[in-house]
């Protein structure tokens, strides 16, 4: 394989993972913008989506039905969590809320361990056929599913923000919570909506990536963290930033793993995180995050 096709291969697989990171990052950004919470449980939504899907397929549900049911299930679970844990601590300090989401993520992972065990599950690709060859690189059909789903979900998210009542209300909340409240938008209802919407994004990300990576109870940990790095890369409050951050992270990670060392694949993203925090804490597209008194 020539270097050019090798590079193309890394970029393609990087874009596949990057799409997933982008969806997770998008969920982070939406919740952070609306509620100010850094939701450490975001990765667990991804895992839950994949796990529900594996279970439903296992009992014989057809793929489209399994997808819809899994998304709804994850949305219900997250809705209950928002209602039960986040809302009852709404007046708490930001540190407390961060610790609560760390606790939630740990508890969800633990419950998944008890329910589904430590064994990895495999999910069949959505469609048969392939792999396809492009310029010396190969791509499996499931990667196309991932990239396509990411694109559709991003378009849907942007459409929702721009053109629907709920999206506009959400944006109003992001800009000025107090003014939004005066306009009759309930911030607590918006918080629930942000969590449930992010849950749906996460769950769908989990389902499309499942046939490529295997499904394990602790898959959410790394995906959540990478999504987070992507969000920071994009500035933590910008939706397009999160998407570009996710795709960029996926490609950098893939190139780094391929050209430097595969063992350090996970290390690379965190070195990027530290570098961004050191050099441009407002994200690569954002302004400086340092506040002055």
């Amino acid at each position, binding site marked *: 394989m020539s270097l050019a096709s090798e590079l193309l291969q890394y970029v393609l697989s990087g874009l596949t993972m990057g799409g997933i990171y982008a969806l997770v990052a998008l969920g982070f950004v939406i919740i952070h913008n609306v509620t100010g919470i850094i939701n450490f449980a975001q990765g667990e939504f991804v895992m839950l989506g994949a796990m529900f899907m594996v279970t439903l397929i296992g009992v014989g549900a057809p793929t489209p039905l399994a997808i819809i049911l899994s998304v709804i299930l994850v949305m219900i679970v997250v809705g209950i969590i928002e209602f039960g844990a986040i809302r009852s601590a709404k007046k708490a*300090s930001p*540190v407390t809320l961060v610790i609560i989401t760390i606790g939630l993520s740990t508890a969800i992972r*633990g419950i998944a*361990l008890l329910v589904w065990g430590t064994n990895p599950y495999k999910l069949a690709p959505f469609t048969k056929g392939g792999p396809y060859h492009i310029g010396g690189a190969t791509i499996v059909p499931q990667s196309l599913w991932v990239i396509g789903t990411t694109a559709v979900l991003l378009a849907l998210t942007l459409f929702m923000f721009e053109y629907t009542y709920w999206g506009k209300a959400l944006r109003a909340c992001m800009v000025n919570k107090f003014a939004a409240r005066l306009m009759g938008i309930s911030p607590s209802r918006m918080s629930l909506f942000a969590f449930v919407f992010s849950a749906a994004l996460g769950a769908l990300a989990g389902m499309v990536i499942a046939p490529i990576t295997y499904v394990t109870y602790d898959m959410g940990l790394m995906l959540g963290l990478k999504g987070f790095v992507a969000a920071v890369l994009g500035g933590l409050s910008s939706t397009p930033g999160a998407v570009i951050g996710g795709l960029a992270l996926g490609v950098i990670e893939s190139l780094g793993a391929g050209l430097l060392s595969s063992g*350090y694949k996970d290390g690379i993203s965190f070195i990027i995180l530290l570098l961004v*925090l050191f050099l441009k804490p407002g994200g690569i597209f954002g302004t400086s995050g340092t506040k002055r008194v």
Partner: protein
Amino acid sequence: MEDLKRRKRLRHSLIALFTVIIFILPFIITNNYYRSVLVIIGIYTTVVVGLCLLMGYAGQISLGHAGFYGLGAYVSGVLTSTYDVSPWIAILLGAVGTGLVAYIIGIPIFRLQGHYLALATLGLGLIIHVVMMEEVDITGGPSGLTKSIPYLSIGRFELNTDFKYYFLVWIVALAAIILANNVVHSRIGRALRSVHGSEFAAQSLGVDTGKYKLQVFTLSAIYASVAGSLYAHYITFISPSPFGLMTSIQFLVMAVVGGLASIWGPIFGVTAITLLTEGLKYIVPKMIPQAGGEYEIVVYGVILVIIMIFLPEGITSGIVNIYEGWRHRKELADVTSGDK
């Protein structure tokens, strides 16, 4: 003023009483398993005291303390087993190195608002863990160091039993508590409490909040490193698994359970969670035989959520607050009934 002096005396006598209890305990408890649990509690207490200082007084959380703990353990382990460095010098080198890493990471972080420290330390902890796994030539990779780590010794006196090691570990833990106590009641402590109240108010009064936070963060990393070194010389074998994210979360749970703004919190939190974990290891396999892996994380997670919702200042502070509230109401009732 009188009240302040009385409180200071009370604090000192409490520490003295606690020290006496600590030194009598291993003579009463002769079972080796219980003694080893007490040694582990001492090691964890050293880490958690530092973490509580950081969380309670600098208002920041670290998710990378297992990394600092591991750094100390690996510096000690590798230097003493492979390079025959004196264990005491290795502990010192580990502490200085870890402190330096924390300081460098902290410089940009404490200039930022928000919870970047949680993320940066999380990332740092994971990088340290990846290095432990990957640098097989130095660390032995996932299966751990191949050469055994020597016991610590004072002169010719080798600390090779739980009983002997117990005293060293708890002397270190007590020193950590006393030092932390002094920090809390010093200028730095007062400055940091003002940060916890209102950072802007503190800054406008000329408190360099970032500098103090950075110092406390560095100190807490050094605590973790020393505890890690002690762990390495106690177990005499190290592999990456006890230094992962789970351990960082475990430290967080211990700190949160004990309460962040009290120096007694860590001891309570560490003891409660260690006993709980040991208890779970005993009970869960009997109840759910097929359960495997780190099932205790369910309990950790639930504890974190429940405590943060209902007792955000931790169990020890929570009990004190409830008691004070009750006393206050009682006094109020006495006064009003006196009026009639």
